[in-house]
Structures are given as C-alpha cells and as structure tokens.
C-alpha cells in the first residue's frame, strides 16, 4: 500500500468541489430559486428558441462535415505516406492550440465579402460571413481535431488481417470498407462527432466575429447569454445556460451509453 492516499484524494476532492462543483451547482441553485416556470418561460422564449435552433443546427452541420472530412483526413494520415505528412498531422491540432478569438477574426478576414475567399463567393451570390454558413465554417474549424483524433487510434489499431480476411472471402475494397472497416470505426466516429457537436454548441470566440450577431437570425445561444448578462438579466442568462448544459450533458451521456453497448457486444 502506497502512502499519500488521504492527502492526494482529499486535496483532489476539495479543489474539485471548490472550483468546479460548487460554481456549477450555483447555476442550478439560481435556476431553482427563479422557479422552473420562469426558467421555462425565459429559457424557451422565441429569441432563445431561435438561438438554440441556430446553435444546435450549425453544430450538427459542422459535426457532419467533420465526420466526413475528418474521416478522410484520419484515413490518409494512418494509411498513406506522403511528403509533409508529419507537418499535416501536427497542423490538425491547430484548433486546440489557436485561441478562439484569433480563429474568429482570421476566418472573418477570409470570408468577409472583401475577404480572401469571400470576394470570389460574393459575385456567385454566396454569402458566408454574417450568415449561418459562416457560423458553420467556424465550428468546422473548431471541431475538426475531435473527429480526427477520435478516429485515428481506432483506425490504426484495426489490424490489416481483417481487411485481408474480407478480401480472401471475395469482398471488393468498397465492400470491405462498408461492411468491415466502417462498423469497426463507427463508434469512434460517433464519439468524434458528438465531441465536436458539444463543443460547437457552446463555442463563442471563433463564432461571434463571423456571425454578425443579429438577434433571431445569426445570434448563437452563448452570445445570447452574454447579451443577457450585459443587460443584467441574470435570470435569462441562467435559464439559457441551464438548457444548454442539460442538452450537452444529454449528448455526452448518449455517447457513453452507445459506446458501453458496443463494447459489451464485442465482449471486450
């Protein structure tokens, strides 16, 4: 038996309680104090509903884009060799390392109507900045590494042998991917999607510059919380925060359940 359990465990628990649990509990305490009727009224106002719809919708859209392209990126990084691969692999983590505000103004500089890319899209009638498309692009940036880093290790661990087995049984490359590889990496892909989605729903810094922040149109839920706070409408901010937190906990719980089920099934 090693020493230090009391000290390390006690400190961990105390610090966790002080920094995380008590502050988080405050929000539910506050919501409880308001009365649930009021929480529902403010938390589901027309403006709030529009914000949720935008936040959840764009986060889901970005998660899907990342699920597709993140899978391609992970595949290419695990399976193929090409010059500069190490640099590309390191670059994938850029969204983890780059402050969100920096990403936000950079993306706006690219996609604003006079921006590097925006100037070519504008004549085509495609508006990116200050629309939901811009928000989605920001969330794709933020969410990409979640998908790539979730899928990569599973893809790397998936032995060549199962693919060879499928081939000896007469499967084409596509059938092997569809029936053998994809089901094996499916849970990891789902995890990556869900992590990117949860992060996207709460994302603030990278979105507010490119979104234009028009209430009811391009106002994301986290921005609505900030707006409420600036007007000292603490109840409103709290109600929206509670709804968002419950939603993201529900998503994370769902992934855990799916993963536990697939682990159980495979008897691992």
């Amino acid at each position, binding site marked *: 038996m090693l020493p230090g359990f009391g000290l390390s465990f006690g*400190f961990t628990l105390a610090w966790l309680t002080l920094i995380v649990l008590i502050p988080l509990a405050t929000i539910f305490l506050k919501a409880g104090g308001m009365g649930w009727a009021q929480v529902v009224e403010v938390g589901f106002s027309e403006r709030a509903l529009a914000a949720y719809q935008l936040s959840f919708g764009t986060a889901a859209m970005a998660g899907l884009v990342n699920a597709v392209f993140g899978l391609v990126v992970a595949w*290419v990084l695990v399976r193929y060799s090409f010059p500069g691969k190490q640099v590309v692999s390191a*670059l994938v983590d850029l969204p983890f*390392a780059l402050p969100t505000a920096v990403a936000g103004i*950079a993306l706006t*500089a690219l996609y604003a109507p006079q921006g*590097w890319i925006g100037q070519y899209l504008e004549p085509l009638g495609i508006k990116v900045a200050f629309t939901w498309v811009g928000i989605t692009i920001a969330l794709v940036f933020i969410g990409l*590494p979640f998908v790539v*880093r979730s899928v990569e290790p599973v893809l790397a661990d998936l032995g060549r042998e199962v693919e060879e087995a499928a*081939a000896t049984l007469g499967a084409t490359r596509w059938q092997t991917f569809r029936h053998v590889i994809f089901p094996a990496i499916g849970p990891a892909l789902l995890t990556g999607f869900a992590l990117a989605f949860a992060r996207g729903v709460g994302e603030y810094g990278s979105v507010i510059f490119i979104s234009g922040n028009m209430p009811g149109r391009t106002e994301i839920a986290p921005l609505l919380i900030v707006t409420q706070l600036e007007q000292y409408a603490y109840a409103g901010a709290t109600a929206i925060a509670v709804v968002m937190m419950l939603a993201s906990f529900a998503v994370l719980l769902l992934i855990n359940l799916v993963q536990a089920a697939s682990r159980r099934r495979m008897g691992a």
Partner: protein
Amino acid sequence: MSVQAITESPVMRAVLITIALVFLGFFLLLPLLAVFSEALREGAGPFLDALHTADALAAIRLTLLIAAISVPLNMVFGIAASWAITKFQFPGKALLITLIDLPFSVSPVVSGLIFVLLFGANGLFGAWLAEHDLKIIFAVPGIVLATVFITFPFVARELIPLMLEQGKDDEEAAISLGANGWQTFWHVTLPNIRWGLLYGVLLCNARAMGEFGAVSVVSGHIRGETNTMPLHVEILYNEYDFVGAFAVASLLALLALVTLVAKTVLEWRFGLHAGARH
C-alpha cells in the same frame, strides 16, 4: 514490380490525399496565414507600433500573469488527482474522473457566468464581498478563477492514462526499500511522468493564455487593467483597428505554433498522445 495487394488504387489514394490536403488547407492553413498576412499588411512598422502601445503591453503582462497563476494550480491538482486515481482503488473512481472532465463539456460562456452568479454584484456572495471591499468579478481574481475552471482537466487528463500504464510497481519497490512517500514521489514517480506532465502543462498553458469566452464574461474589459490578449484582440477589432487586432493575434498564433511544435516533439520523442478532448 512490387504491388500492394490489399489497398486502394494509386488513383484513389491520390484523390483521398488531395481531398484531405485541400480541406485542411482551406480550414486550417488559410486562417493561420491570414493572421500573419493581415498583421503585416501595412508593413513591419505599424505591426510593431501596434504591439508597443501601453494597452497591448498591459494585456500581454496580464495574460502572462493569469497563466503563471492558473497553470501551476492545475499542475498541482493534476498530479494529486492522478496519484489518487491511479495508485489506489476506491469506490466512485469513474464518477470522479467524469467530474474532473466536466469543464470540457461546459460552454466557456457558461463557465464565466457561474462565477458572475457567485461573486458578481447581484451574486450569492456579492453583498458580502462589497461589504469587505473585495472585487472578484471585473477584476483579476475572477479572470484567474474562470481560467482555472476552463483548464481544470488538462494536466490530469494527460497524467491519468500515463500513470495507469506505468502501474505502481516502481513506487512499491521504492517504499519496500525504505523510501518515504515524498522521496518516492520526487525520485521515482516524477522522473517517470515528467514528459507527460510537460505535455499536459503545455496544452493547459495554451488554453489559459488563449481563453476568450469565459474570461470575456468575468473581465469587464477594462483597458490596461482586466484586458487579456484575446480580449484586447476583440476590442481592437471592434474599433476597426485591424492591423492592431491582427498584430496581437499574431502573437497568440505564434504561441499556438510553438505549442504545436513542442507537442509534436514530445510525441515523437516520448510516444505521448493527446486524447481527442481538449
């Protein structure tokens, strides 16, 4: 003629690599280039001038101060938590790990909000704080609290898997040879985990210096006083001082690049891996 029997055709491979590179180019590389290009748009002079303003320097100092306080706090916490979790068996361990991860699933804005609700003028302790003339929200302590909350899981996340993998044989051997707990920690455990610890600290620091949403809510944006670098970027940008905004942003981007390089070096040298969650 060395043909790989089980893989995609060369054409398919080229197509997939192209898709991946074009996608990453548009979504990752271009924004990064845009930061530096916009910062230097009017040449090096205006770029350096923008960094030399009193407000920018104050923001840089504050950001360094915040990181210097919150990173060591989370480092100590991360070591204590992973020691307790990986060296001992106790009921509720899985729950504890989940709770440590909790800040990852909270929106940065909400992370700021909770401290406003606690310590703001109308908050739970607002009246008491005012009575004693203490200021947390719209002051440096609030920024530190929000930053510690946001970066809470980083070090523990890296250390727990590493220490689980290493087991506790080394420590038990040290104890059986007569070392006490602290000696065992300093001479056995710490050397084993130092690179993993550095890795976690690196990621923790990047986030602590770059955090925007949570800090934005608690800071009050007082120039020269409670403005961190990311907040200063926002202020300059909203004032249409684009060169100034991108100049400060380029410093943060540089920090990100240094972090990525150091992280990659640690991954190559020591086989460390980041999880998918940050």
